[in-house]
């Protein structure tokens, strides 16, 4: 029944899109002849992190085939090497521009928005052309695109017109003349090339099928970036570790594949832009409704004991951590954010920040999934969220149980 309703909704949206939604074709400016620099394109392709999605684990760079799990089925990224049969060897700079700016493939078919054209649409044409020039130079790999495995009706691409009518608008990047050049560069890198918002939505984002939560970057409670010095944000993006935190999971991949390759100047611009976007947190209930105050007191007590036994050796007695080695837990927004899934996940599964040029041999965090029960993990996470003035809501054993079920890949 729900599926039928959704189908109808998509159908209606499709009709609307056909009638009203199609914007007039924009005439794109011609590619600057010979002006597109391969080197600049290489850098932009890194900044846009084409690599992570368009490279399968263990596969040739940019040859595609990485599965991308969505709630609607599995998408497979495409081969963007210059192979004429299976890659984009027959594409022109205009074709790439259309994909990036309009979200349409060379044959005009609508692209799934897992390809973040909602962000890339505001790329500058000259940058898209430089990216194209660079992609012409990567080794051509013959590797046929795997067919997507989307469930009905999501396998019907024309229906994407409905989604687009609601969520996509072709646009161009407009500098804010009231802001500095640096701020505008940061905005372009964060909002367009880096497409940070694809995961870090304005209200934060639970990452579908991955069980990670991408904090809202403008929120103090979620990201806490307002209190970070610019140079520490730069350090985090460049090396994966900083005095106040480390990157894990999908963000570790972004740092390894993209951000560590950016110049200090660009990372500084991103940090300046990110720090400028402070939004007041809503004051609604802080979560934790599943735990009564009596249960919370119990969990805190048990958690304190477990913390001393298992955690304090690295994160220190009062959660102060060791800079760049073991992140502090006191005052760490990754612990404090309203959605506790990341804290639960990292306690269960541990992990390493990425190997980067600036931190090639990271210290790791042990997994505790096999040592601690759901209740014990709930206790220790409740404790680190509540101790040392952290003041975040408690976590229930049930939330830990769901955290055990998330895919680890």
């Amino acid at each position, binding site marked *: 029944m729900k599926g039928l309703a959704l189908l109808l909704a998509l159908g209606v949206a499709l009709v609307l899109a056909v009638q009203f939604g199609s914007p007039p074709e924009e005439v794109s400016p011609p590619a600057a002849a010979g002006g597109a620099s391969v080197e600049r394109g290489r850098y932009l392709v890194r900044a846009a992190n084409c690599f992570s999605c368009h490279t399968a684990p263990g596969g040739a760079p940019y040859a595609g085939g990485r599965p991308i799990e969505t709630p609607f089925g599995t998408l497979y990224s495409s081969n963007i090497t210059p192979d004429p049969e299976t890659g984009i060897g027959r594409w022109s700079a205009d074709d790439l521009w259309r994909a990036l700016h309009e979200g349409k493939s060379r044959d005009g078919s609508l692209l799934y928005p897992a390809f973040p054209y909602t962000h890339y649409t505001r790329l500058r044409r000259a940058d898209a052309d430089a990216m194209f020039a660079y992609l012409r130079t990567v080794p051509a790999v013959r590797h046929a695109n795997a067919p997507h495995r989307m469930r009905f009706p999501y396998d019907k691409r024309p229906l994407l017109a409905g989604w687009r009518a609601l969520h996509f608008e072709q646009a161009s990047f407009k500098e804010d003349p009231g802001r500095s050049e640096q701020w505008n560069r940061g905005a372009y890198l964060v909002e367009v090339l880096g497409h940070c918002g694809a995961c870090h939505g304005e209200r934060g984002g639970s990452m579908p099928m991955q069980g990670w939560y991408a904090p809202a970057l403008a929120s103090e409670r979620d990201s806490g970036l307002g209190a970070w010095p610019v140079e520490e944000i730069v350090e985090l993006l460049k090396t994966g570790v900083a005095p106040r935190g480390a990157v894990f999971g999908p963000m570790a991949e972004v740092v390894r594949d993209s951000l560590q390759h950016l110049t200090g100047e660009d990372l500084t611009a991103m940090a300046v832009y990110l720090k400028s976007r402070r939004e007041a947190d809503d004051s609604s209930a802080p979560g934790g409704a599943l735990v009564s105050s009596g249960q919370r007191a119990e969990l805190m007590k048990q958690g304190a004991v477990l913390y001393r036994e298992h955690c304090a050796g690295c994160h220190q007695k*009062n959660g102060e951590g060791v800079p760049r080695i073991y992140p502090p837990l006191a005052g760490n927004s990754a612990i404090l954010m309203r959605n506790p899934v990341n804290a639960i996940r990292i306690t269960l599964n541990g992990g390493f920040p*990425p190997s980067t040029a600036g931190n090639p041999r990271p210290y790791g965090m042990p997994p505790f999934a096999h040592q601690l029960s759901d209740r014990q993990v709930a206790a220790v996470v409740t404790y680190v969220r509540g101790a040392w003035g952290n003041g975040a809501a408690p976590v229930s054993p049930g939330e830990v149980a769901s955290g055990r079920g998330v895919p680890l890949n």
Partner: protein
Amino acid sequence: MRSLALLLLPFLLLVCGPAGGQDVKDTLEQRLLACAACHGKRGEGLKAEEYYPRIAGKPAGYLYNQLINFRERRRHAPPMNYMVAYLSDDYLREIAGHYAALSPAHPPPARPPSKEALARAEALIWRGDPLRKIPACIACHGEALTGMAPAIPGLLGLNARYIAAQIGAWRNHLRRAQQPDCMAAIAGQLQPPEIAAVSAWLASRRVPADWTPLPEGSLKLPMDCGGI
């Protein structure tokens, strides 16, 4: 000059002093506490009945190949795939070398399997089955089953369930190696009772005192295997 240094000293301490007042050792053992949680501080694998395999003393090339195979999803074991996902080739090579050089005590061997299983296992271990293109285990892993440098592992001192699971994973394509993947071909020929027998037999053998892998090139391999 000296007074300047003295003047600066408190600031230096402020900048360099660890926040918790506790020094963190710059050792691989400290960096790899994440691995120790399952494999033990010295790669011994945990207690005999637990699943986590011993990694200490396996050839460095073998360990490195496995870490890469986990990262690149040729081997499928989600906690391992996740753990190494963002680590570099260089770091993984260093980690492999670290565990290859360790030699913690071996656990006592498990009880031997039934007579029938024993016979079935020993036939495969010593002779293989040429009709089914199954080489003897010793043909590649060595007479003493210590493996051969740089990348063929020793087969003793492991839990029977772990060994059986690896052969099963090869059959089900959840464990793959570089092409040509000879163990996949061999595992595909083995029948479940044979897998159980071989695993139980291997787990029941005492690990010899000299547990160093054979030097590279000391065996002429009967098959062409990738990554070796």
